[in-house]
Structure formats: structure tokens, C-alpha cells
């Protein structure tokens, strides 16, 4: 496998054909994506204090509108589900769980996988060989199967789901951290620090870590997107968080053929929220990756 042993130089600038150095821009699309993410995270965080309808209340109105689900109207912006619960506020409340799962999973993967990769790339030797083999084993395991295995054997709390997806993100994160660490370990500033008698732990934390984190910021965004989608996949198999609504579970409620035919808004509302969020994360991650010129992010 030819992995990322390419130089990670030329961070914010790239050479154009005539040899001049042009400054790279993130572009307005990047900021649009960030704006959407800020909006959805803000709504999710502030949900209890916003004038939203109670996500678990049943707004049944047999006389006026007949049987639920009700189609989108001024009263219910995105319609209601079969139990006449307001889809708009359910989507916002669902974002709370989905986003927490996504961020927590990636944070876990970064702390564990990032550390293993960073240390492996720096110290080499048996530790590197062993951890690389474990990562190959993890990568050769179809991710969803592993997630199914863990979630089916444990209690499905928010914590377990986030942990499961976090474990899955260890291998790709560690691979990138290792290759970045390998490259930077060869650079002059590390040699200089060594020559000045710095301890290995000092070099890894103060010299390597800040440099390795830069190319990995793109992976954090892409990884969050993958984790949010994976939660949705688990929800479809009935293996997501047991309590509370997530986007995946909301989509599932509207996914059976009859509901899909008669009231598509029940599943299409949360699909739209999920799609926009995943797209924003992917796009922002892609732009960052180009900006920092990181190649091969295997996820």
C-alpha cells in the first residue's frame, strides 16, 4: 500500500505555472458551509430556550384536519409525523443527538488514533509495526459489521454509540497521523530540538503535534460527516440510541412504503437536514484538505 509518505509542505501557498506563488483561498462556498454548520449547531444547542413546539407533544386535530400525519403548513412548518408530532422541532431536537454522536466519535478517534499514529511515526520500531498491523485488521473489517457487533452486544446508550463509531475512526485517523508524523520527524526543527537535548515527549507534544494537527483538521470534518451518516445507518437497522430522537430514527419513522407514499415529508424533512449537514461537512473538509494540500484521506 503506498500511503501518504508525500511531503506535506507548501501549506497555504501553491506554485502556479509561471513559477509565482499564488495565495490559496478557501472560497465563499467554504464560508457558506461553515455558516450552515454554525446555524444547525446553534439551533441544536439553544433548542430548549427557543420558542419551539414540544417535540414529544401530539397535536392531534381530528375535527379540523382529520388523521395525522399532517402536511406542512404555517402551523407545522415541516408537517407532522404519524403521531402528530411537529417535525420541525423534532428535527432540531434530533440534531442534538446526531451531532453529539458525530463530534464525540471523532473526538475519541482523534485522541486515541491520533496519539497512536503520532507516537508510532515518531518512535518507529516494534510499537509502530504492531500498531500498524492492528490498524490493518481494523480497516479490513467492514465498518458497519463491527458497529453492528458492538452495538448489538452492549446497551445502546448515547455513550456506546459514540464510542463504537469512535473506535471505527481510530484506524483512518491513526494512519494519517502516522504518515504526517513520519514526514515531520525527518524535518530540521525536530533534529534541532533533538540536538538541543529535548526529551522525546517534549518533541512529540511541542514540535510534532501542532504540525500534525493542521492536515488533520480536514479529516475531523469529513470524519464527523461519516459518523453522522453511520448513526443513521445503525438507526435503520434498529441499533441506534434507544432514548430520544436522532435524524436516523426520524427518517426511519417515515421510511415504510405506505408513509413514504402518502406523507413523504415525514422522512424527507430529516433527510434534507442530514443531507445539508453532511454536504456542509464534506465540502468544508474538502476545501480545507486542498488548502493544506493533504493527499489521500482514506475514510
Amino acid at each position, binding site marked *: 500500500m503506498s500511503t501518504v509518505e508525500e511531503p506535506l509542505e507548501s501549506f497555504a501557498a501553491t506554485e502556479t505555472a509561471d513559477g509565482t506563488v499564488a495565495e490559496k483561498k478557501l472560497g465563499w462556498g467554504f464560508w457558506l458551509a461553515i455558516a450552515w454548520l454554525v446555524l444547525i449547531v446553534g439551533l441544536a444547542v439553544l433548542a430548549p430556550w427557543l420558542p419551539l413546539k414540544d417535540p414529544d407533544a401530539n397535536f392531534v386535530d381530528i375535527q379540523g384536519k382529520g388523521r395525522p400525519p399532517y402536511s406542512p403548513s404555517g402551523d407545522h412548518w415541516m408537517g407532522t409525523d404519524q403521531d402528530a408530532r411537529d417535525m420541525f422541532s423534532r428535527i432540531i431536537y434530533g440534531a442534538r443527538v446526531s451531532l453529539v454522536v458525530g463530534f464525540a466519535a471523532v473526538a475519541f478517534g482523534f485522541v486515541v488514533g491520533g496519539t497512536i499514529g503520532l507516537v508510532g511515526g515518531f518512535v518507529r520500531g516494534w510499537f509502530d509495526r504492531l500498531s500498524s498491523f492492528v490498524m490493518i485488521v481494523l480497516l479490513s473489517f*467492514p465498518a458497519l459489521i463491527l458497529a453492528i457487533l458492538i452495538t448489538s452486544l*452492549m446497551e445502546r446508550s448515547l455513550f456506546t454509540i459514540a464510542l463504537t463509531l469512535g473506535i471505527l475512526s481510530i484506524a483512518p485517523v491513526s494512519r494519517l497521523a502516522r504518515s504526517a508524523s513520519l514526514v515531520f520527524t525527518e524535518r530540521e526543527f525536530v533534529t534541532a530540538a533533538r540536538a538541543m537535548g529535548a526529551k522525546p515527549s517534549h518533541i512529540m507534544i511541542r514540535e510534532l503535534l501542532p504540525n500534525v494537527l493542521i492536515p488533520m483538521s480536514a479529516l475531523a470534518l469529513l470524519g464527523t460527516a461519516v459518523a453522522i451518516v453511520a448513526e443513521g445507518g445503525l438507526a435503520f437497522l434498529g441499533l441506534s440510541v434507544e432514548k430520544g430522537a436522532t435524524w436516523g430514527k426520524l427518517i426511519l419513522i417515515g421510511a415504510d412504503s405506505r408513509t*413514504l407514499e402518502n406523507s413523504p415529508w415525514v422522512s424527507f424533512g430529516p433527510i434534507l437536514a442530514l*443531507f445539508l449537514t453532511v454536504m456542509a461537512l464534506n465540502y468544508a473538509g474538502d476545501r480545507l484538505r486542498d488548502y493544506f494540500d493533504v493527499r489521500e484521506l482514506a475514510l
Partner: protein
Amino acid sequence: MRSALERLALVILLLLAVSLLTFAAMNLLGDPLFNILGPIAGDTENPESLAKIEAAKEQYYLDRPFFERWLRWLGDFVRGDFGVRFASDGQPPVTDLISERLPRSLLLMVMAQTMAVLIAIPWGIAAASRANKPVDKASTFSSFLLVSLPGFALGLLLKFVFAIKLDWFPLAYNAGNPWTERLHAFVLPALTLALPAAAVYQRLLRTDLITTLQEDFILMARAKGVKRRSVLFRHALRPSMFSMITVFGINAGALIGGALIVETIFEIPGLGRAIVEAILREDFPVVLAIVMIVATAFVVLNFLVDLFYSLLDPRVRT
């Protein structure tokens, strides 16, 4: 470049590690005895249930040390005997269940990958031959949208448009139908898997094609008067398929994961449904068998992809 033999050894080591991991997870996190016998498993007071417990322990080797059980299971597995199903006493063995379900999942994967490549090749060529023109920009944008749409969402959208609104395809799979209708029911689920894969493949193909098109032998062919179309399909395509074929192999694993969900949406009783059902009933032998089949397929496929390189481009041969 490592020799093929060395890589084969790595593949086997990898599969052993995967099987040990799965076997350990199933045995340490769950209680196999309880899954075989149900509530009686905890009832050690009653001599009648105690006898049953002893018999079950004997039959399923549960009284042996963990490592021996794993070796026994492995030995049987290699010989094609996947054991008995825990949850259903007297039911057909796991092997029968697998041989009923596997062909469906296999067909779904083959159809999905074939569709993906058939879509990706013209798509990638169209994009690469007009690099950075509007056609290429539109293709970049649409592939980006496709990749951002999760499989289950795409599946629901396709089902809504083509099965419910247009009524071109059936809503669910029926095993009793003649094979043409069963194949017909596979089109939408396969397409659900194929579209995002095709988007990824065409991106890779496009990048490699753009590089190839700048090489001297392309210029030579053009100078000799070979038609543009012929240069694209017959000269440039083959040496440009490297990245695509690598990811084709890696993607097989991802597709298996996606297939589980797609089988749920389109109600196809394949391996994906089987593993979900088995997990809910904690039917360990079934789960183990499916995980091993999937992992083996995944690893072996990647091994073959590695070998295939040298056939595709003689320059890689050592």
C-alpha cells in the same frame, strides 16, 4: 514490492485475527448458554435443567477453554461446516441459511459494482476529455452531491420516485416470483449502491485520464491520425484504471455495509437481513459465519486487486 506469497501469508494472518476478535466478542460480551437454552440456563437448582445445561455444554463445547473452542470452530468453518444455529433448536444448520441468503447478496453486489463501472467509465471519460469545461464542472458538482447523500436516503428517494410515483419497479422482493421479476426487483437496490460508487470511480478515472492524456504515446497516436474517440477508449482508458481498480476492491467492503441497509429498505432477504435478525436473537454462529464470509471476501478481493495490477500495466511487474 513484496512477493505474492508473503502477502498471502499476511492475508491469512489477518483473517485469523478477525475471526479471533469476533469469536471473543461474541463469547465474552454475550452468554452463549443462555442463548441456546433460554431462561433454563440460569436454573442450576433443578436437576432436570442441570442435565440439559450439561448436555448443551457438551454439545457446543462450552465447557472447554476459550482457545480450544475457537480452534474447533475454525476447523469446522474451514471445512465448510458453519455449525448449528443457537436460537432455533432443530433448525437447519447455519450452512443452509447461508447458502440460501448468500447468492442474493452476491447478486446484489455484482449488479451494483457492474452498474457502477458501466456508469463511471463514460462519465469519467466525458469529464476528463473536457477537463475544466462546464461539462466537467457539472460532473464534479453532481458527484459531490451524490457522495454527500447517505445510502439510506438515496434508497428512499429512488424508491419514492421509481417504485411509488412512477411504479416502474416493485416495492419489495418476493422469493416466489420467476427469476426475471426477481432480477427486476434488484435494479433499484443495486442502483442505490452503484450511484455513489460510480461518483467516486469516475473522479479517480478522470484524474488518472487527465494525466495519461498528457503522455507522449497519446500525442503519437493522435499524430498518426487515430480518432479522438478511439484514443480515449482504446489507448488512454486501460492505463488510467489504476486508482479506480484499487478503490473498486476497497469499496467492496464498504458496499457490503451499505448492502445491509439497502436490503432492509427494499426488503430483500439476503445476508444483511440475516445478520440483523441473528444479532437481535443473539444467534452467535450465524453472526460469526456472516462476519467471516464478509471479511474473507473483502480481504481476498483486495489481494486479487493487487495481483490484477500487473496484468493491467506491465510496468508494475518486477
